[in-house]
């Protein structure tokens, strides 16, 4: 009888995914390439939480926390394009499709959800690599997005400096989280 209880306890402990994981220092970077100039920036304090039971993922970032090579690029980005004083955050909320939180190693999954930036919300579907090892989960991926989708006005004089399609990379290292 005791053995049955022990086996049941071990099984429940091993399959219990009723928890969340958090990444406080997620990295999101973007890259714009034109013949005039390359612009890249990174944000290393992106917040993300995954609900392992519901397979839901949430991401939030401060738009003024992107680091650029040149101060002038940062100024244009915050004041003219993203208007970070009016729209300080970008937020993504979505689901990890067919996610198996118990699977060790690497799984490639689609993440579908709503991304809101500069006051504009858009459905995104992103191919994502999820790795689970002894340290926790690492989620990473790359996708392209169009500047015009987010109502970002670029003056004609600077239109040649900024690509129409921007490449975005992300990487999050998660640790256990109790809210």
């Amino acid at each position, binding site marked *: 009888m005791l053995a049955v209880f022990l086996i049941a306890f071990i099984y429940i402990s091993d399959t219990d995914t009723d928890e969340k994981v958090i990444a406080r220092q997620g990295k999101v970077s973007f890259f714009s390439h034109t013949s005039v100039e390359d612009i890249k920036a990174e944000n290393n304090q992106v917040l993300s939480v995954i609900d392992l039971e519901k397979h839901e993922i949430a991401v939030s970032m*401060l738009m003024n926390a992107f680091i650029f090579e040149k101060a002038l690029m940062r100024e244009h980005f915050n004041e003219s394009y993203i208007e970070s004083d009016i729209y300080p955050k970008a937020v993504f909320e979505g689901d990890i499709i067919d996610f198996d939180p118990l699977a060790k190693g690497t799984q490639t999954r689609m993440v579908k959800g709503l991304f809101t930036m500069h006051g504009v919300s858009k459905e995104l579907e992103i191919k994502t690599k999820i790795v689970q090892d002894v340290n926790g989960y690492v989620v990473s991926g790359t996708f392209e997005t169009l500047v015009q989708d987010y109502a970002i006005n670029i003056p004609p004089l600077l239109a040649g400096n900024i690509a129409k399609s921007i490449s975005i990379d992300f990487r999050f290292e998660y640790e256990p989280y109790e809210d």
Partner: protein
Amino acid sequence: MRRSARFSYVLIFMLISQCFLGCNDPLNGDLTSVKPSSVYTVAQLISESRSAKTTDGEHVIAVKGTVHEVNTVNGRHTILLKGDTADETFVICDMNTNQSTTTQAVKSGDSILVKGLLKGILKDVIMLNCVVVKTE
């Protein structure tokens, strides 16, 4: 011809001025010599950031607290300061690149005074370009 030359000079002057202003933005570089507008404890900073009292624009501030963790996530030297709040909310200080040696000497549990550019709050308060002012 003379008119286009004059226009070119004005344009070049504007570009140089803009670059000069941009390159010398004190908030984008080393904050060692910048005086903080306020000094907070970690608990005060978290409380005031949550109530949005400190997020009007970007300020150089100083914060005093206990080091929760020092890490190099994303290849960046980062110090997490903890306060007295019951929940796990920290002040994340992304250190200036000239602080790598100083940061390596900082350990969990140290009392520290850090100066940096306050960016805002998500779950944690975020500060960039941080420099260590004092370690105890």
